């Protein structure tokens, strides 16, 4: 589905990602585990083609996207739900969702997708005319996810979807992620909550200081001695 080869990315003067090579298979949930500042968000932003690559390449569905601008990557179905949601606060819930389907491929099916998103998150339907900035944290996260789904993702990258949410909502969020995956969307998950993330993941890798140190099946990583100590608090 997506793979990178020896990716090197700088953020300002700092060498954040060092020789990152990985591959995610179609239909998988893949978790990226790592401490704050290890380079997880930088990786996602590199894949979204927002950050320039110093060297290396990214291939999505067999297409080399290393030189694509961000909007073209979206058209291909490589969608990011960013950390901090990045909603449009003074636009309505409905407008936020509509903008999710801004690109042609998604726009053609906008009405159908909208119905699906509303059936997944009925609360968004109820709040459709409300301004996004007035929603609660959990609702905003649903809206961010809903907006991502409106883009008809083939690969959905989620950056800290559970950040700042109440435990009950976090549980719902993970159920929803599984549900989205079952419907055929490949998922790349970046989570502080590594234990929960790995529990629903088929595969995963650990980033430390910008390098992939461990990769494998989700369960293997969850059981790895080093990850248990460093990231799972066991």
């Amino acid at each position, binding site marked *: 589905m997506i793979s990178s080869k020896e990716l090197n990315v700088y953020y300002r003067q700092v060498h954040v990602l060092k020789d990152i090579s990985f591959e995610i298979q179609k239909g998988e949930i893949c978790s990226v585990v790592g401490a704050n500042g290890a380079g997880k968000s930088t990786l996602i932003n590199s894949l979204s083609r927002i950050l320039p690559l110093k060297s290396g390449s990214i291939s999505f569905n067999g297409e080399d996207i290393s030189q694509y601008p961000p909007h073209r990557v979206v058209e291909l179905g490589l969608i990011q739900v960013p950390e901090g949601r*990045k909603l449009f606060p003074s*636009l309505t819930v409905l407008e936020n969702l509509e*903008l999710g389907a801004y690109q042609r491929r998604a726009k053609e099916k906008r009405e159908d997708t909208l119905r699906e998103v509303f059936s997944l998150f009925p609360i968004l339907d109820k709040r459709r005319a409300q301004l996004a900035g007035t929603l609660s944290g959990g609702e905003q996260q649903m809206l961010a996810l809903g907006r991502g789904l409106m883009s008809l993702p083939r690969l959905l990258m989620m950056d800290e979807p559970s950040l700042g949410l109440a435990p009950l909502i976090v549980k719902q969020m993970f159920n929803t992620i599984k549900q989205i995956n079952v419907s055929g969307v490949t998922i790349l998950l970046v989570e502080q909550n590594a234990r929960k993330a790995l529990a629903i993941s088929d595969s995963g890798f650990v980033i430390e200081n910008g390098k992939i140190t461990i990769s494998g099946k989700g369960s293997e990583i969850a059981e790895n001695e080093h990850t248990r100590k460093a990231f799972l608090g066991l």
Partner: protein
Amino acid sequence: MNWEIFFQALTSGILTGGLFALVAVGLTMILGVLKIINFAHGEFLMLGMYMTYWLCTLFNMDPYLTLIITIPAFFFFGVIIQRWLINPILDAPMEIQILLTLGLFIFLANLAQLLFGPHVRSIETAYTFKILTIGSVNFASTRLIMFIFAIIFTTALYIFLKKTDLGKAIRACSEESYGAMLVGINVKRVYMIAFGIGTACAAAAGSLAMPIYYVNPHIGATFVMTAFVVVVLGGMGNFMGALVGGFIIGLAESFGAVILSASLKQLVTFTIFVLILLLRPTGLFGTKRS
């Protein structure tokens, strides 16, 4: 002040306010979407006036008919300026951006002076001196036409921003450009369109003003200062604020002219400007930016 003068000032203020609103809406659009303070905005208006002047003078066109040329011409002019001058410095520090638009302002004013000379020019049409009377209130027909067009343009722009996908994308970029990029909006392209629309608003205002005001290469500065007051008053980057602010300043100037004297009308405007900055820097409709 008797009622007669009151209504006269009220009418005149509202009619002029429509023009101020159109200029300010263009300026606030550029400010809101691009976060750029466009000092050259008044020069676009000045150039719009000249274009109308020359089309009327050389081809005998009706000044209002020239709108169908000035609006698209200045839209593309704005797109080009954004593409080649502003996009390259979008990530530069604020003072660099200010220097650029300030430089553009000086360049365009002097270019106009070089091309058209420093003379004051005006046009005359069959209806230039036609005065309309409602009750005891008199006003030039050209002012009413200017007002009507200005309202049509701002309303059309408002509907465009509210209802169309492109309009929503422009609003999205003005609020959260990063989020806009992630939903697949070509942000730089939206910036070009926004700057083009802002420029077209200023030029359209110029065309509408041409049958009423004289044009010279330095008239832009007068309008841009007023437009800045309107934009700050309305809350920077706020569309409705610019619209309402335009009318407030239009009324303030016309009542200022009556109460104080015509030469002091700008005093009222800038007194309002200073008071707003001191007491409510976010403007009437503005919200605090995080």
